[in-house]
C-alpha cells in the first residue's frame, strides 16, 4: 500500500471536479487522480498510491542523486588516500594505492 512506482502521465481529462490521468507504468496503463498535483502535465513522471498521484518526480534531483552515487568510490578512495598520507611518514607515501575492490573490514570494535 505504501509501495508506489513511478509512471509517466500519457493522458489527462476532467471527471467532474476531479482531474484524472492515464499513467503508464512500463507498459501497464492505469487511471490516477491528479487532484493533489495540479501542475502535472503530459510526459511528467508521478508516484501513484491507491489511484492518486502524490508526488511528481524531480528529474534534476534524480540526476544529482545518481551522480553522487557514482562518485562514492572516488570519494571514499580520496578520503582513504588522504588518511594514509596523514598516517604514513612522507618517505613511505609514494606507495601505489590498492586497486580493485577494497577488503571488507573485519568485525567492528
Amino acid at each position, binding site marked *: *500500500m*505504501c509501495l508506489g512506482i513511478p509512471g509517466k502521465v500519457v493522458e489527462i481529462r476532467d471527471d467532474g471536479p476531479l482531474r484524472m490521468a492515464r499513467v503508464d507504468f512500463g507498459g501497464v496503463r492505469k487511471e490516477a*487522480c491528479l487532484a493533489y498535483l495540479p501542475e502535472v502535465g503530459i510526459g511528467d513522471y508521478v508516484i501513484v498510491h491507491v489511484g492518486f498521484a502524490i*508526488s511528481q518526480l524531480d528529474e534534476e534531483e534524480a540526476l544529482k*542523486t545518481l551522480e553522487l552515487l557514482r562518485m562514492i568510490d572516488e570519494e571514499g578512495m580520496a578520503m582513504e588516500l588522504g588518511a594514509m598520507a596523514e598516517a604514513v611518514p612522507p618517505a613511505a607515501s609514494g606507495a601505489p594505492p590498492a586497486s580493485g575492490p577494497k577488503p*571488507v573490514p573485519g568485525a567492528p570494535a
Partner: protein
Amino acid sequence: MKYVDEYRDSAIARKLVDEIHRITTRPWSLMEVCGGQTHTLVKQGIDEALPKGVRMIHGPGCPVCVTPLEQIDKALAIAARPDVIFTSYGDMLRVPGSTTDLLALKARGADVRIVYSPLDAVRIAAANPERQVVFFAIGFETTAPANAMAVRQAARLGLDNFSVLVSHVLVPPAMTAILESPTCQVQAFLAAGHVCAVMGWTEYEPIAEKYHVPIVVTGFEPLDLLEGILMAIRQLEEGRAVVENQYARAVKREGNREAQETVFRVFEVGERTWRGIGTIPASGYHLRPEFEKFDAEKRFEVGDIHTQEHPACIAGQILQGTRTPLDCTAYGVLCTPQKPLGAPMVSAEGVCSAYHAAGRGLEAPTAFPLWELSRPLGEAPR
C-alpha cells in the same frame, strides 16, 4: 523503467556496500520504518551484506499488519450483512480476523469487492443506490489523501449509501512510542519515503533532536536503501542526529500541501490501537464531526466484538522489532502465505511474508543479492 532501473545498478550497489563497510567502526542498530523497504532489504539480502554488528530492525510500517483485530472483526460483521457491498484494498482480504477473513466470507456469498482506488468504491455506491457500500479505509499517511478524497467526493455527490470504516495510523507517533520503550534498541531510522512525500519531514525534526536519533528519509529501490543506510551510519559515526533526505527525487521538505489540506479537512488526529502494539495516543485519524454521517461504525450496529489472536502468532513482537520471523515456531510450518496465522504473513509489506518470499529460514532460499551479479567470475562471494 525510468526512475526504477537506474536505482537497481549492481555495480553501484556494490560500491555502496563497500563504502558502508569502510566507514563503519562500531555496531549499530537501524530501523527501516516501512514494510516496502523491508521487502527490498530482505529480497536483495542487503541486511545480510552489512558489516558485522550492524543490524536492521524491521519497523511497524505495514498498514495491513497494524490494523487492529477489532476493526477487522467489525469489517467482517458489516460485510456479512445482505444489504452491504463491502469494498477494500486487496491486501486486507486474507488478513485473519478472530474467526475468519473477508475472502472466506466472500466465498460464502458475501458481496466483498476489491478496489484499486477508493474512488472506485464511490462509483460503486453511485451505481447501486439501493445497497449500502462500505469502504475499509485503512493505511498510513500514504493512503489518507485518497481515502479523504473519496469521502469528499461522496459528500459532493450527495451519496447517502456510502460510508467508510476508518482505521488510519500515523508514522511519527509510532516512532516516538518505539523510542520511549525501555527496551528500545533503535539508534537511527530510515523514514518511509512515500509517507514523507505526502507529509514532508518537518514532523521528524523534533524527534531527531529530542531523542538524538538520526532520521534519513529513504526510498524503496536497492540503491535508495543502501544510500539511506550509508547516510544514517555516517551520522551515527560522526555523532550527528538530524533529518536528512535520501529520496530527494520524490520528497520535498513541506510534502504535498494539497493532499495535506484535504486530509485535515476530512480527518482529525486521535488515539488509535495498533495490532500487536497497543494503544498509542494521537497516532491515527478519525473522521471529523462534519463527516460523521459517512462513518460506518456509526451507521451499522456491529454488536459486541470479542477478539482472539492465534496463540502461536508472535506478530506483535515482530512488529515492534523485538523478534524476527525466525524466532517464531509457527513460521513456515503452521503459518505460510497460503495459510497465514497473522497479518505480517499476508501483506505485501509484512516482515514474515518478506522472509518467506526470500526463503529465509526455509529449506530452499530463493533470494540472490543484487551486487553478486557484478562479481567477476572466479571471485569468491563475500
